[in-house]
């Protein structure tokens, strides 16, 4: 439980950070809130030679909701996101999901960038961000690169980031029509638990407010990485809310068909599926009803 010695640097800007990280290659780690990394170092699951703290790069913590592109700095903490008034209006599903992460203390340190980069299949910010079609802006010594979140995860705990590449910010396009979203998380206690199944349902109406222009379903803890359920989404897109409400049971089956959860000490695969189906129904019901209500 003691951490092995390593070299520590607090980078003063982005360039310095990526420079330092790329020098050490795979032996270096970026440090954000540390709630995953420090624990992993205590468990000797990762033994970095060098740790580069990003916390001095204040611009990386900014949240900008002014334009059509909502920009969330990778260092924004879950507490900051959950309490952000504009985000609560535009993408409540994200605020709601991150407010369920860990404890208050954890949320005060833990960042959204760290949550994504740690790449837990059950990461609570991932399912809603997938459903919001988020794009990651990454930086490395060779420049910036935009990566759609949908192609970011490559396995449990793995991403396509290469050493020296960090997430700078997360971009979400402001929904054009009226939208609504809901995230439901299966926990074994009422608070402070990792998700055994997370279901994000986000829907957007066309400008006329009649048909579902966009439906997105993000799932956490249901596959080796957070995933979308495109077939299920397709079944609802283009329908009116009333029509969609009727189709919920069959869509729910399609959602489950997209998943491949595991059995572990936290939950069995069968139970995860069962609850994911029920959660999908509940989330879809709530979202579609609220869109109908106008």
């Amino acid at each position, binding site marked *: *439980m*003691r*951490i*092995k*010695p*390593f*070299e*520590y640097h*607090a980078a003063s800007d982005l360039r310095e950070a990526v420079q330092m990280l790329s020098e050490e290659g795979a032996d270096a780690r970026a*440090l954000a809130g*540390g*709630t995953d990394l*420090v*624990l992993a*170092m*205590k468990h000797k699951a990762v033994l970095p030679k060098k*740790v580069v*703290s990003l*916390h001095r790069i204040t611009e990386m913590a900014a949240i900008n909701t002014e334009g059509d592109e909502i920009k969330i700095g990778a260092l924004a903490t879950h*507490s900051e996101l959950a309490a952000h008034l504009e985000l609560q209006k535009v993408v409540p599903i994200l605020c709601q999901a991150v407010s369920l992460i*860990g*404890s*208050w*203390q*954890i949320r*005060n*340190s833990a960042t959204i960038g760290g949550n994504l980069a740690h790449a837990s299949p059950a990461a609570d910010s991932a399912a809603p961000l997938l459903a919001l079609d988020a794009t990651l802006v990454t930086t490395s010594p060779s420049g910036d690169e935009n990566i759609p979140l949908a192609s970011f995860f490559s396995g449990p705990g793995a991403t396509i980031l290469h050493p020296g590449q960090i997430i700078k910010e997360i971009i979400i396009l402001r929904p054009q029509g009226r939208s609504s979203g809901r995230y439901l998380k299966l926990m074994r206690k*009422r*608070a*402070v638990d990792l998700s055994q199944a997370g279901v994000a349902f986000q829907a957007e109406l066309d400008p006329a407010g009649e048909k579902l222009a966009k439906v997105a379903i993000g799932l956490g803890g249901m596959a080796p990485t957070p995933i979308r359920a495109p077939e299920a989404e397709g079944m609802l897109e283009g329908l009116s809310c009333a029509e969609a409400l009727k189709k919920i049971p069959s869509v729910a089956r399609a959602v489950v068909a997209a998943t491949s959860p595991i059995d572990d000490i936290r939950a069995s695969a069968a139970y995860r599926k069962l609850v994911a189906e029920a959660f999908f129904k509940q989330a879809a019901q709530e979202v579609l009803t609220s869109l109908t209500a106008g």
Partner: protein
Amino acid sequence: MKIPIEFVVNGEPQALFVKPNHTLLDVLRDDLGLLGAKKGCGEGKCGTCTVIMDGKPVNSCLILAPRADGSDIITVEGLADGEPHPMQKAFVEQGAVQCGFCTPGMIMTACALLDEKSDPSEEEIRLALSGNLCRCTGYAKIVEAVQVCAQRIQQDKGA
């Protein structure tokens, strides 16, 4: 090996050389002799190490020592201002203290909550404290203590 940090702990500026592989909790307990914050797990999972860092409760066992550079830290030792803090009084009077091992962390979170929201509901109190485990009290008297403290602070303000 060791690197210099400067930070403020309970209002006092501190300049120290710390090992990067130590945590803020180690620094408080071993370097500064502030033994109020406890190590119940060292994994961010019990809350006994909770301190206020730049106004927010955090798990000091998960914060690398050098990250504390430039920060403002308040530990349970820094709450009493000549006399015990109203939260400390309320905890004692309401019977919210049994073994007391969770108490310093619990009180730090509770104080941070009232700083953020002066009249939290019972549900909000329970939610805020859910990262602080207590195995002795069943939380009932802890929640009461926070409510009593909130009321007293309100009354004092009103008076």
